[in-house]
């Protein structure tokens, strides 16, 4: 009970807790896993719907769709052949089943000139590029992955640290400045920040790489980091601002809880109180959001990759959109959705590990 001026009243009676039956963490995970698989199925249906059904509903014909596959330069004969080859004249559920089956067992595609085999997992065959989409995705995944993970570590550490310090020194100059900068960081669009940083640091001062190159980490770690340092910082700036604010809010709330007072009453050092008792509790929502942010980013940090011309999944998707190469776009969409669902699953499980109260559900 906090000290209060007149008018406060003592809290209402707390319900005596019954001893609940704890459900094991394993069964919790299994239920979430089943949920994730079902979600993926639904996501694939929606993806399929967006690309195959919705255009038909708004009046496009099978030929219009097929032309998206063969590009803008094809003639009517090629388009008709494509319609047959792609099975666009078949009923929707057959199309969906074919498409779904292809993901697991691969499929053959008739390009008009030859039969190309697209091995499992077949997320699509690009007629324009004349190759299956999946290997392209695999090529680009490390780029996006490096970008996302590197930035993630930077923003997590810096954001949380600043947030904690701001919360502990609430109202101070540090707090106000940090939150002000954070507000700016959250508001500035990344393509602006990225370009400005490129102008200043890469072209102006020559400290960092001008973008456009990616060196795999196994080839040359130093070079790998050199090419990514500016994209990392730019991307991290945006997120760390948000995480600083989030952490600050969470810490302020947690440090006002009764168990913090109890921890101090036990004679614990303030440092222990802040980290073991305060931060641990405040981090739970942060962890959740971190997982989701990372999941989303893995699907392609589109703006960052475009700004710095990095050959990642996001750039791949943009290229595909510009070229009207639908399989490419679909492939990226499905992969991105997969990452988000998996991230959600991991985050749910982590939550149960961190907060024992959640395991009852």
């Amino acid at each position: 009970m906090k000290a209060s001026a007149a008018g406060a009243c003592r809290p209402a009676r707390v319900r005596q807790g019954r001893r609940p039956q704890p459900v094991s963490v394993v069964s919790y995970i299994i239920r979430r896993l089943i949920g994730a698989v079902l979600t993926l199925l639904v996501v694939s249906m929606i993806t399929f719907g967006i690309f195959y059904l919705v255009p038909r509903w708004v009046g496009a014909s099978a030929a219009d769709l097929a032309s998206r596959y063969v590009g803008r330069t094809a003639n009517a004969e090629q388009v008709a052949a494509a319609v047959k080859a792609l099975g666009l004249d078949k009923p929707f559920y057959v199309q969906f089943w074919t498409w779904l089956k292809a993901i697991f067992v691969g499929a053959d595609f008739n390009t008009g000139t030859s039969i190309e085999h697209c091995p499992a997992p077949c997320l699509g065959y690009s007629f324009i590029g004349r190759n299956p989409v999946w290997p392209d995705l695999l090529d680009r995944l490390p780029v996006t992955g490096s970008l996302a993970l590197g930035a993630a570590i930077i923003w997590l550490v810096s954001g949380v640290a600043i947030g904690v310090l701001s919360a502990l020194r609430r109202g101070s100059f540090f707090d106000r400045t940090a939150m002000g900068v954070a507000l700016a960081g959250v508001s500035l669009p990344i393509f602006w920040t990225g370009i400005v940083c490129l102008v200043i640091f890469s072209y102006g001062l020559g400290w960092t790489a001008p973008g456009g190159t990616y060196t795999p980490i196994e080839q040359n770690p130093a070079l790998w980091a050199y090419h990514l340092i500016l994209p990392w910082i730019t991307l991290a700036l945006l997120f760390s601002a948000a995480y600083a604010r989030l952490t600050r809010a969470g810490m302020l709330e947690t440090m006002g809880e009764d168990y913090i007072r109890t921890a101090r009453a036990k004679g614990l050092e303030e440092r222990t109180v802040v980290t073991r008792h305060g931060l641990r509790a405040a981090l739970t929502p942060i962890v959740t959001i971190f997982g989701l942010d990372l999941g989303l980013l893995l699907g392609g940090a589109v703006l960052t990759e475009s700004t710095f011309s990095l050959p990642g999944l996001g750039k791949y998707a943009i290229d595909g959109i510009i070229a009207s190469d639908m399989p490419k776009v679909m492939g990226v969409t499905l992969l991105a959705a997969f990452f988000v669902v998996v991230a959600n699953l991991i985050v749910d499980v982590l939550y149960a590990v961190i907060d024992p109260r959640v395991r009852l559900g």
Partner: protein
Amino acid sequence: MPGGHSFLDVRDLRIHFPTDDGLVKSVDGLSFALDRGRTLGIVGESGSGKSVTSLGVLGLHNRRNAEVSGEIWLDGSELVGAQPEAVRKMRGRKMAMIFQDPLSAMHPYYTVGVQIIEAYRVHNDVSKAVARKHAIDMLGRVGIPQPARRVDDYPHQFSGGMRQRAMIAMALSCDPELLIADEPTTALDVTVQAQILDLMRTLQQEFNSALIIITHDLGVVAELADDVLVMYAGKCVEYGTATTIFEHAEHPYTWGLLGSMPRLDRAVTSRLLPIAGAPPSLINVPSGCAFHPRCVYEPRTGGLGSTVVPELADAGGGHLVRCHLPTAERRRIWAQDIKPEMEGA
């Protein structure tokens, strides 16, 4: 005791909080003493300053938000002027606190065992295994069945009464000589409350600790306390032994508290005798006697009640009362008006 102090000696304690609306004088000149083996009950309503006092004794106020002055002597060491680090080392070891709501007062992410072990290892350099054994031992002493199994349970897996016992175990894990219990049973059912009060009484005898019990429930006070301190608007308005306060109360506020309660051991009266008005603002404390706006006897003080702050005076035998009315008149009012009305004659 060096310097003639009791085990706990609080002198002219003041705890003020500067806020945007003004200075909140939560505790405004409080003095009391307590020896080991004895129980002091601090009684008051919301805003009386009783909880702020207990936090002040433990040094739990943030010095950036609160102005603490006065002296708190615990076993010969002065706490208000001491280094915060020195006071921290005494927390949990020499003095411990039990809070009102055990569900929110214990960390939800750690098991009860971990939290007790933590409390023990702060002040005792022992291995985790030894500390765990001690934790199981403490849980058993507070009456939790199957302690070896329950030591690994989380707070939310306990029922309300068991949870409060666990918190008591945590507070007592280092054998503190002073135990402060802030409304320890308010959030509990009455049958559970009886068990917990019984437990506290037993443990106090076992540990020979000094116990301060803070509550608004006069029944709980009568059960446990040897001495009673009635607080109003940050000051002590009456102090005496439990028998004195319940049998010979001499402050109009105490009369009001006693009269407000319906009692199971007395006949049902047609009306309760509430105190008019509401507890005062601690920023704009009424002038003179803080209780005067609600006191029906204020006119008899000849204007003193609203202008002069009464001193805490000894009405005989260590019974302290802060009131302008003369002792003889107070006793008359009690014997002729208050007591009979309460007893429903």
